[in-house]
């Protein structure tokens, strides 16, 4: 016999806690299980591909390599090899200066168990490099997190030369340059910055 749909009085809120009955005494008399650990872990071998490999190799020399969309002129960093706007292969390399401004930021005050190196409060930000059309994420360091504003000018802080690797972690963070803030007149979007050089 098919189960009958549950008819519930719509004026009565659904019960939040199920009433549990019928648990054998042997089980009911012990400390109940209230939580269970269900960690998920995925191990990959990551191959960055042509464009991002060039970016990572250049990182070893403290260079930031972007690529330009041949159709719109927009500059993407880190380069992914294709223009997400035009859907075509990017090829023209652009070396960007390690300066830019904070386009968006967040101050984190809660520690992350797996990142003991990040001591709250810290400021993570989307940073628009001078000449780029898209921002990328970094930490704003060497300042009070509360002093960071939209438009704060920053420059990269690199690892010591003898610790440089082919890795984005060569940039320890971004520190304020002390220059006047960039005025952000409106919410800027991809497509409005293609002519920045």
């Amino acid at each position, binding site marked *: *016999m*098919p*189960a*009958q*749909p*549950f008819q*519930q009085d719509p004026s009565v809120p*659904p*019960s939040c*806690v*199920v*009433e*549990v*009955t*019928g*648990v*054998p005494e*042997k*089980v009911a008399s*012990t*400390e*109940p*299980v*209230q*939580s*269970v*650990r*269900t*960690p*998920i*872990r*995925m*191990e*990959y*071998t*990551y*191959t*960055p591909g*042509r464009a991002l*490999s*060039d970016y*990572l*190799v250049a990182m070893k020399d403290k260079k930031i390599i972007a690529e330009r969309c041949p159709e719109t002129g927009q500059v993407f960093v880190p380069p992914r090899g294709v223009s997400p706007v035009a859907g075509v292969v990017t090829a023209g390399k652009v070396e960007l200066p390690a300066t830019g401004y904070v386009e968006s930021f967040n101050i984190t005050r809660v520690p992350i*168990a*797996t990142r003991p190196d990040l001591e709250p409060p810290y400021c993570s930000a989307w940073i628009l490099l001078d000449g780029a059309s898209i921002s990328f994420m970094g930490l704003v360091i060497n300042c009070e997190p509360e002093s960071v504003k939209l438009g704060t000018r920053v420059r990269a802080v690199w690892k010591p030369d003898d610790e440089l690797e*082919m*890795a984005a972690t060569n940039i320890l963070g971004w520190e304020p340059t002390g220059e006047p803030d960039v005025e952000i007149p409106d919410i800027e979007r991809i497509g409005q910055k293609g002519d920045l050089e």
Partner: protein
Amino acid sequence: MADEVLQAPLVLEYPFTRTTGPVVGAFLTGLREGVVLGVRRSDGTVMCPPLEYDPTTSEPIGEMVEVGQTGTVVSWSWGGPPRDQQPFDRDVAWALITLDGADSPMLHAVFVDGPSDMATGMRVQVQWADERVGHIADIAGFVPTGENA
């Protein structure tokens, strides 16, 4: 152009802890105590593993029912050698097993030597883990009972 193909290990990890609620909590508590519990649905059938809500009617359900520790394989697939994060040190079969007294199957491992030892309808029984903590892995797996279906 880069001269070499770069590669690096990448690990994504989410250290979840889930609260179990009263019904799944009772199921897991039962496993720790060596008892397998199902839950009775509104139509009288028994679901094991249990849910807090009837999947057909959405009605809250909480009448726990102890089910057997032997059951019948209703479907299976040969899993072969365990992957790194699976809690096995040997080849296993994955099977849907309807325990005696239950009307719906649970997914678990069956320990046999090879796929030729597996069959739909075969009878299996719980093999408990040496240490039980209130987790589905308290059932280490299932082994054939040797009886016919």
